[in-house]
């Protein structure tokens, strides 16, 4: 398994960049600041380059800044909008790796383990990221390191575009020269460290390895459990000694194939061609791992930054490229290509082991018929997810509850055997239909009733079969049911029931319903 590589992207001027993208550049003679209203008056939340030169700082009160530079222009800041924008960026940043996360308030983390070769190495990947953000008018600082903490530290405080190799992390590497603020600590802890005379990460690790060492720091911060206030924990996270819950462990990389296109695609025929190539490549990839895909995800990155995703779930694991291609083909009709699609990526999120077998060729399918799983996949794609199902027994006395529908080909749940003397109808109506009883015998069942506008005379009857309500599930006022199996004068066989008894005190006269049709 290759060592972990994390790409950290820091957008130092996220709020200002976003404001500029939305409202155009700021005026030359009026430096812009973004403000938020606080209890003590408006406070500056973000400053641009000109405002910074004029003396405005983040966290300053607007009145103080006005005193320094009266020409300052203001606009309200929008943290929620920034956050939403960052979330969208995180999805977009997944173009550099299969997994991306938000690093609030203004950063992104991308897991680029074992994908750098797709971009021509890690240096090229970082350059690519810088260029892509620049194209969208966003300032960014990127860094790659073995842990999220180290990548964050390098992105914020290291030289731009720095890359930390898997072995450089420990000892006096590039990390030692960074300020302790690169440990992502809170302000008061930084103050404590400054008073102790510790300004660089290297000094901290030297204290740690010195006499008394770790215990000395540990004693001072013994009550601090959270990593944000405990420099030792942060140091361990940066060096990879302690796990960082921000980054999930990804034990196996899902099979992933992609095409970066020189000329963005705008037509469906070309997209089909690319998809066919990807499906074949994916089939080879899956075959080499002796696996088959159950869920596939197709990502389409557009030139203008939009990402379209299509996912596909299959009834049985497969690596038949023609089958995958055909199923996706039906889902691409409504894709908006915009100015063109520049990256197409196919990823198998859910794989299952499949032994190597002889391929099911299309000619074979034409001659011998398709397999059941292929047939079900085609039906599910054309008719929708819930359209194909199979009935399974469920432990309940109520007829309509005793059957559930589940996806075909999934294993049937264990159930108790049916009682052989319970006659059950061949078909059950979706909901019981009320019938009008025209004439009932004293002992209970109707002699003549009307259903769907037709009058039926009951010729034969068997019953009642009493089914009590499930008191552990239903409300107390639910009425019991007396089921009768009847046959009318011409031989039509039905399953009817009376809901309740006259004397049960749970409502008025009991109603009659028709629920099932016998063979």
């Amino acid at each position: 398994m290759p060592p972990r590589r994390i790409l950290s992207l820091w957008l130092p001027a996220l709020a200002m960049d976003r404001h500029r993208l939305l409202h155009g550049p700021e005026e030359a003679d009026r430096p812009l600041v973004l403000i938020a209203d606080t209890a003590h008056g408006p406070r500056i939340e973000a400053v641009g380059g000109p405002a910074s030169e004029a003396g405005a700082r983040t966290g300053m009160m607007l009145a103080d800044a006005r005193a320094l530079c009266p020409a300052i222009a203001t606009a309200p800041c929008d943290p929620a909008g920034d956050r939403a924008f960052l979330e969208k960026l995180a999805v977009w940043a997944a173009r550099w790796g299969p997994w991306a996360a938000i690093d609030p308030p203004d950063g992104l983390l991308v897991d680029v383990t074992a994908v750098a070769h797709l971009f021509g190495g890690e240096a090229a990947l970082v350059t690519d990221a810088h260029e892509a953000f620049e194209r969208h008018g966003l300032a960014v600082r990127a860094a790659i390191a073995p842990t999220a903490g180290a990548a964050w530290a390098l992105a914020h405080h290291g030289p731009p575009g720095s890359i930390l190799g898997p072995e450089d992390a420990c000892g006096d590497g590039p990390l030692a020269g960074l300020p302790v603020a690169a440990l992502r600590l809170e302000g008061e802890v930084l103050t404590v460290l400054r008073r102790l005379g510790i300004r660089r990460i290297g000094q901290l690790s030297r204290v740690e390895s010195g006499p008394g060492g770790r215990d000395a720091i540990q004693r001072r911060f013994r009550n601090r459990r959270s990593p944000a206030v405990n420099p030792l924990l942060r140091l361990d996270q940066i060096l990879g000694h302690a796990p960082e819950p921000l980054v999930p462990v990804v034990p196996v990389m899902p099979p992933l194939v992609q095409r970066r296109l020189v000329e963005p695609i705008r037509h469906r025929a070309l997209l089909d061609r690319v998809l066919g190539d990807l499906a074949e490549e994916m089939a080879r990839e899956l075959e080499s791992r002796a696996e088959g895909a159950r869920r596939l995800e197709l990502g389409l990155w557009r030139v203008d930054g939009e990402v379209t995703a299509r996912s596909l779930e299959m009834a049985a694991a497969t690596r038949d490229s023609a089958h995958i291609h055909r199923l996706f083909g039906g889902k691409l009709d409504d894709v908006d290509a915009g100015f063109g699609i520049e990256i197409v990526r196919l990823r198998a999120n859910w794989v299952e082991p499949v032994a190597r077998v002889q391929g099911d060729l299309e000619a074979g399918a034409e001659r011998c018929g398709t397999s059941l799983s292929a047939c079900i996949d085609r039906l599910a794609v054309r008719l929708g997810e819930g359209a194909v199902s199979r009935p399974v027994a469920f432990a309940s006395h109520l007829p309509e509850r005793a059957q559930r529908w589940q996806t075909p080909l999934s294993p049937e749940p264990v159930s108790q055997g049916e009682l052989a003397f319970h006659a059950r109808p061949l078909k059950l109506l979706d909901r019981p239909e009320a019938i009008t009883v025209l004439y009932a015998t004293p002992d209970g069942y109707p002699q003549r009733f009307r259903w769907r506008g037709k009058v039926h005379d009951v010729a034969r009857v068997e019953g009642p079969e009493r089914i009590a309500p499930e008191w552990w599930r239903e409300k107390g006022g639910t009425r019991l049911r007396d089921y009768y199996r009847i046959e009318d004068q011409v031989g039509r066989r039905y399953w009817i029931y009376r809901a309740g008894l006259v004397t049960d005190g749970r409502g008025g006269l009991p109603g009659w319903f028709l629920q099932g049709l016998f063979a």
Partner: protein
Amino acid sequence: MSRSTMPADKLAAPRALAACNAGRSARWCPGLDGSGNSSCHHEIFASACEASGAAVALALALDGWHHRPCTKASEGEDRRAVLWVQTREAARLTGRPYGAGLPAELRHRLVHVLARRPEDALFALEEGVRCRDIAFVLGEIGGNPRALDFTASRRLTLAAQRHGVPLYLVRLDAARDLSSARLRWQVASAVSAAPRWNGQAPGAPAWHAELFRARVHPPGEWLLRDEGRGLVAERLADAPDISPHAISA
């Protein structure tokens, strides 16, 4: 679309016509091989107020399945599935299949498809008959939708013949329109025989079935019964003799 070519129309040559007449004299009876080319596509007309359509379709399908020719491939246990396709309208009218009421051998192999439109149902039927892991396909479509015209039924017949998967299409409350089905039935529930122990109760199901179009059998009427030991047919009457060109299905 299956690109199979039909064998040239047999009725064209006089000798073939004679052979066909000789074949037609073979009266339909239960136990005929269900997977033969001659009976791959059944159409069963029934009322939507009773379950006789689906019940007769199941009875015929099981009858054909039990009498299928033994081949080397079928020596092992037959684990093929059964596809039951319903349009939403048909499911609303006559309900959905209920596992506990199905024949025991079908309970665990049923795959149910609920189609929104008749076009989708036809697509599902065709996919079903083209699948080698399906024993038979049962469809339920209400009325006479525009999509189910002669071309569509011909297409289904050809696909069923080519892949040897029998198709039983139940038409609920439908008029007898043009169709290429090899056997066309009109069925209704009939009064059941009194059971042995409780004379008041409904007995083993019985249906009145009229075969009104068939390519190789003369038309006729039967009383079908399913008493747990296979399909039993009791002949009621012969249909009046009609000219051969009206018989070609």
